[in-house]
């Protein structure tokens, strides 16, 4: 996955607002995967993630004339995808609840033992999942999507300072977990 510069996004935004279909093609080609992965983190399901991103692109084209050139197109699309994903989760709450109940009924389901290959990575995965929701989102957007704190603020619609607070809290929690884990390993050895 290659990263796309902010200049490239603003160029696309300008061309989109002039109804340049080629710009839509290029934007789609370069960013589709990234946004599907982002949507997947909410839905945990490929086909709904693809649908969500598809619909965001459709919406983007429909409102192309109203795009604000001073706003980052990159974070704007992230925000659309996020909102669509949350709507999807809301509308399918019934369904996912049932899935949760099924998993609850079977105590062994959904719990994976840390693998021998890379125990630290497996633990880390669990620690990230256990973070408060907002901290987890900030961590993932930063670490996996490579967004700056300002871009994350734009996506989650919170102040950049709040992003910093969430991220520092997340990193400190993860670090504490890591140090406990190392201590335990030492004691065993």
């Amino acid at each position, binding site marked *: *996955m*290659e*990263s796309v*510069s902010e200049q490239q996004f603003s160029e696309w935004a300008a061309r989109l607002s002039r109804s340049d*279909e080629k710009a*839509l*093609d290029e934007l*789609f*080609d370069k960013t*589709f*995967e990234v946004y*599907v*992965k982002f949507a*997947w*983190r909410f839905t945990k399901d*490929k086909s709904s*993630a*693809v649908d969500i*991103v*598809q619909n965001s*692109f*459709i919406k983007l*084209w*429909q409102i192309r004339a109203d795009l604000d050139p001073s706003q980052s197109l990159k974070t704007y699309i992230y925000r659309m995808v996020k909102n669509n994903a949350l709507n999807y989760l*809301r509308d399918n709450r019934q369904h996912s609840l049932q899935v949760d109940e099924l998993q609850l009924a079977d105590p062994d389901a959904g719990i994976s033992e840390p693998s021998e290959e*890379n125990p*630290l*990575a*497996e633990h*880390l*995965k669990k620690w*990230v999942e256990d973070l408060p929701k907002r901290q987890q989102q900030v961590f993932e957007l*930063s*670490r*996996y999507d*490579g*967004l*700056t*704190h300002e871009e994350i603020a734009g996506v989650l619609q919170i102040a950049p300072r709040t992003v*910093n607070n969430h*991220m*520092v809290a997340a*990193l*400190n929690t*993860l*670090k504490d977990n*890591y*140090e406990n884990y190392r201590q335990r390993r030492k004691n065993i050895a």
Partner: protein
Amino acid sequence: MNKKNNISEILSYWLKKIDPKDRSAVKKLWDEAEDIDETDELTITKEDKASALAHIKNELNLTQVDETQTEDRDATIFTLNWRWVATAATILLAAGISYLFIPIREVAPYGQQKTVYLSDDTRVLLNSGSSVSYNRLYGVINRSTTLEGEAFFEVQSGEVPFTVETFNAEIHVLGTKFNVRSWGTEPGSETTVTLTEGKLAFQSLTAPGSAIILNPGEQSSLSLNQSVPTEPDNTSLENTLSWMENRFMFENRPLYQIIPELERRFNISIDVRADRIMNDSLTIYYSNQVKAEEIIKDICLSQGVTYRAMNNGFVIENR
């Protein structure tokens, strides 16, 4: 700027905000995290991408630029013969005809109403959460529509009969005004037709031939287990049409119909955890200024239950 640089730039930004003695541990975790992104298991193939793009283009009525096809055409353009032309024409014709029968669907989202004008100036006002579908030949060889939910139709006079199909019924008219309420998803679901002007025929989908004729001011219903609609009955037009002015007038209506209507009209979710009340019927009137909470409060008061607000809606439960 590639992603690796970007990520290490971001890390250095965060490290500055971390206590110096903890930085090496955070750096280690940051590097380790590279391996745990679960989305790496998610593979998006070329085909996924192509079909998503095709869907987007189709939805927006944009032309798809398919480079491989352009090349093929350049290579074969001088070897065209009439057999291929005929085959292509047949395929195009078939594609064109099936395109004509792909229905167009208009939806009023929850919390909103929507007015749809069809090609003959027939007006359809959709209640919240309702949809009407018709094909591209509407007004040419048919005037067929399909309704899910509730709508008020003002049908322009014309020689081609206008029809509304619901999950269980069919309505035939020439030029009239009428309301159809048909929530196939509700318990005890039925289609109710109320005529304000003109004349119409109302019959079951499964047993046509036993149509009921309605005159202005009359109402008739057809439930799922009936094959003949009820005898026409004079009804309060004001009550039936109150939704069009955003008012709430329910006369002796069961809560299992009222609750979903409130959900659609206010775009909220109402979780009833006191099932026993759902079969009770209520008569309530509200102006268009009413808030959802006010109605819910009154319902709870009358039923001896209680409610609380939650994210995006309300929970109704026993005291």
